[in-house]
């Protein structure tokens, strides 16, 4: 790997790095990927694997919608172990106030071509009988999906490698810049373009990147086929994702193809250790049981944590890094890494090759003006 100069060297083989490698290879670029652990082992391994169109902002909607459609198009080629399932998402409204929000979202999505259905209490009950009685209704986003991320990352990386991409695992990058990636063992890999796709660890490579770790917890149950059909999210989820300072939990469950139920979610700032945080775990599971009491007696088999890469304005950093012509960023995806990985790869490689991106890219540029998140 050392000795030649690649067109692109990517640091990080999570879902985003793997997608970028795949896109590079598809466009005939000679690409190398360095990964300090194994493919898909960071947030990719820890997350829920959802593909959701999020309406937190126009820019977020544009990126998630673009990417969701790319996933949908890729679906027939995905191997069985990626477990892609277009189960849809239901945003659950617990009361009339939240139903107002449901109707607003419905219009918002409709105006932008995202198919959704408003569910009243009976319709919700029919679709998801295990929700607590008394829910007001919800919004079904029909084209949202779930998949198993480590295998999805592996699929994209394999495809890239079949087209000549080179991968080195157990390779820690310590420095990037000036067309070089330096590894912990002293080896240097040269590339015309270097991409920092190191997720929550991006600031270790470029200190000025304003990315904070946002810890999350998940629990998975034994197999209960038929218990849950859609991904369910409480409308308060966005409030949780919004808060920049406090610890929060929000109801979010997902059916796996195995019949196991994935239970989340939590967000914490400033928690650097991987250990399961007891108080957060309890609050998360209590919240989940309040929406779905039938979860209570179910057998919980594993718990784990992960670190999302969070930026101050909740949008990822995709594009050139000011100050070094060779450096690009492809990071900061918070809880939408799986969803936006394919679109991220597209617009990143568009920028590298000078092609015209399909959506406006200004909101995601690392150099975006007026934002207080690049500290000196």
């Amino acid at each position, binding site marked *: 790997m050392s000795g030649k100069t690649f067109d692109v060297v990517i640091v990080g083989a999570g879902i985003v790095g793997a997608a970028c490698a795949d896109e590079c290879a598809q466009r005939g670029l000679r690409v190398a990927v360095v990964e300090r652990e194994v493919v898909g082992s960071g947030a990719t391994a820890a997350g829920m694997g959802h593909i959701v169109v999020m309406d937190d902002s126009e820019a977020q909607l544009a990126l998630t919608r673009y990417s969701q459609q790319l996933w949908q198009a890729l679906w027939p080629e995905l191997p069985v172990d990626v477990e892609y399932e277009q189960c849809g998402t239901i945003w659950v409204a617990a009361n009339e106030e939240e139903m107002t929000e449901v109707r607003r979202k419905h219009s918002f999505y409709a105006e932008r071509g995202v198919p959704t259905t408003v569910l009243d209490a009976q319709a919700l009950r029919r679709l998801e009988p295990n929700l607590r009685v008394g829910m007001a209704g919800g919004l079904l986003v029909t084209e949202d999906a779930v998949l198993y991320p480590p295998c999805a990352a592996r699929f994209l990386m394999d495809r890239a490698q079949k087209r000549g991409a080179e991968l080195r695992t157990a390779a820690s990058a310590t420095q990037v810049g000036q067309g070089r990636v330096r590894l912990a063992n002293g080896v240097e890999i040269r590339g015309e373009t270097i991409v920092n796709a190191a997720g929550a660890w991006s600031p270790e490579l470029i200190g000025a990147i304003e990315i904070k770790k946002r810890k999350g917890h998940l629990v998975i149950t*034994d197999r209960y086929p038929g218990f849950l059909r859609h991904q369910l999210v409480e409308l308060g989820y966005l409030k949780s994702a919004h808060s920049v300072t406090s610890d929060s939990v929000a109801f979010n469950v997902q059916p796996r193809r*195995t019949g196991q139920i994935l239970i989340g979610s939590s967000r914490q700032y400033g928690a650097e250790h991987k250990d399961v945080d007891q108080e957060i775990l309890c609050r998360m599971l209590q919240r989940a049981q309040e929406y779905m009491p039938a979860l209570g*007696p179910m*057998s919980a088999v594993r718990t784990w944590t992960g670190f999302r890469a969070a930026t101050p304005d909740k949008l990822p950093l995709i594009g050139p890094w000011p100050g070094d012509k060779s450096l690009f960023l492809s990071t900061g995806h918070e809880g939408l890494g799986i969803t936006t990985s394919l679109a991220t790869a597209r617009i990143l490689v568009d920028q590298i090759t000078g092609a015209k991106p399909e959506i406006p890219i200004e909101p995601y540029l690392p150099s975006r003006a007026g934002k207080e998140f690049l500290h000196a």
Partner: protein
Amino acid sequence: MPDPAASAVSLTVNGQQVSVLAGATVAVAVAIAGQVCRTSVSGEPRGPLCGMGICYECRVSINGVPHCRSCQILCEPGMEVRTDG
């Protein structure tokens, strides 16, 4: 070891009436009924392996509760045991 002098316990396995000695586990009742406990994710029939409650191969549904480790549970009169598939 179940005591031969003790009374028999009657329960059902997949609807079939089975009689075991008091002190017998549900895994034993399933075996006596000529059934296997579960079907694996790829469709293989499976029965108990470890006999001590750690391998999870002996899981059955007891009175509607799934994923019960039958090798650790004593038979009770009237129990309704259902195995997989």
